[in-house]
């Protein structure tokens, strides 16, 4: 049923300050009870039945989570990753602690150490001897990623981070450097 404005009957001269186009008049249905109401109720019931049956034809939209996973967007801020140079295999992190300084939740702990020239760990002078992120405190704001001058830390795509105790949620450098075991599905361009 098309909503029809019954503005024609209104005497607009009584409202000189109103612009006719700005007025929305409310259409009221027949009062409940009585023949008109029953007729309308019957028609609307049929319309409602059609609507709900349309939902059956559409099929469920539920994502069966543990079996099916939602694809994330490329810029999704999930669990952090530390990176190495692809050619030399050296860590990009130089232990500058800028990420820890930027972190509003103070969940990053960096202990830097001097590089041994014979066994270099990172490309710079120093490297991170200890690099820990307490993911039970992290708010996934991405400030660490922004603060890092070497793109050594980025936000990954993992979001399944629950664990049985809090100490397991403190991710060490090795865990952050490793590739995630289960890759989170990623949305393709324009999806």
């Amino acid at each position, binding site marked *: 049923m098309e909503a029809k404005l019954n503005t024609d009957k209104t005497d607009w001269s009584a409202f000189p300050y109103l612009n006719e186009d700005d007025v929305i008049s409310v259409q009221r249905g027949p009062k*409940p*009870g*009585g*023949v008109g*109401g*029953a007729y309308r*109720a019957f028609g609307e*019931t049929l319309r*409602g*039945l059609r*609507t*709900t*049956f349309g*939902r*059956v034809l*559409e*099929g*469920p*939209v*539920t994502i*069966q989570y543990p079996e099916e996973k939602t694809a994330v967007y490329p810029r999704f801020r999930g669990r952090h990753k530390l990176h190495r140079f692809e050619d030399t295999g050296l860590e990009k992190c130089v232990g500058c602690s800028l990420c820890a300084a930027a972190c509003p939740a103070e969940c990053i702990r960096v202990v830097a150490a001097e590089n041994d020239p014979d066994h270099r760990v990172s490309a710079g002078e120093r490297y991170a001897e200890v690099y820990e992120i307490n993911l039970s405190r992290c708010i996934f704001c991405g400030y660490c990623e922004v603060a890092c001058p070497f793109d050594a830390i980025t936000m990954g795509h993992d979001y399944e981070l629950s664990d049985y105790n809090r100490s397991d949620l403190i991710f060490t450098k090795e865990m952050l450097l490793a590739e995630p075991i289960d890759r989170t599905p990623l949305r393709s361009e324009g999806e």
Partner: protein
Amino acid sequence: MSLPLAEVNYVEATWVMVVKSIVIFLGVFLIVPVLTVVERKLIGRFQNRYGPNRVGPGGMVQPLADIVKLAGKEQFMPDAAIPFLYVIAPILVIFSGIITLAILPFGNVQDGLGLYGIDVSIGVLYFFAFSSLSFYGLLLAGWSSGSKYSFLGAMRSAAQLISYEVSMGLALLGVVMMTGSLSLTSVVDGQGEIWNIVPQIIGFLIFMIAGFAETNRAPFDLPEADAELVQGFMTEYGGTKFGSYLLAEYLEMFVVSGIAVTFFLGGWMGPGPGWLDPVWMVGKTLSLVMFFIWIRATLPRLRYDQLMSLGWKVMLPLATLNILVTSVIVTVS
């Protein structure tokens, strides 16, 4: 017009009756738990989701899990409750549902065996007498629970009863006048040429609407109204007693659908050999139960005064007009 079997002294052996009643009882009691999960799955589909699908294949073992959960609960009674009435109320509700099963005809007499519990010559009255009894169950539950929510639910169910029982009776009266018999098997026999839904479409609609009210289903689930009355008369019940109300609700839905099929949709009639009759009957009944679920997924709960005005101002005059026209036509032809 065939006479009701009870009137021509057609009586079966006692052991046949016992076996029949056990078969009908068990058959329907196996259908009812399946209905609960089918309802949840269907409602899910109507809302673009799956519904239960974790327990067993496709979630079909869900009722077993529900029953185990309910049966494992503590038996609990509020201090303010009246013990005897509190216990007897759910029994009464289930009883009224089960006893109506006895007269539902699943098929005609075949090889000397009537495919129904019993063919009483007062079938319609029997149905009304016992389906009204279930309201005593609700009333007693609300009264004896000693809770305001329960009491409000009981009051609402009482008001609903008087608004709808009359129109329901009048809706069936049209069919009874056309058939000239109160026996349910004769009613089905009378639909050999054309199902009663065609000449009695208004009666069918009124019966279905009253049936929603009778079974306390949406949109007339005012007595239990989960949102405002926290299940109304069932508020103070838990465990198996609560489960028995649930069971009774689905049982009554099956019974009311069965009666509607018997009176308006040709009962056991359908193509195929005679042994298919019960299949047709149960199939039609179950499709009507699906319709109940569809309606529940569609319509919002009516307000108290809307329910009253629908019952008294619309359905009662319509039903009366229906039987007036029917009686004129029956008398003239």
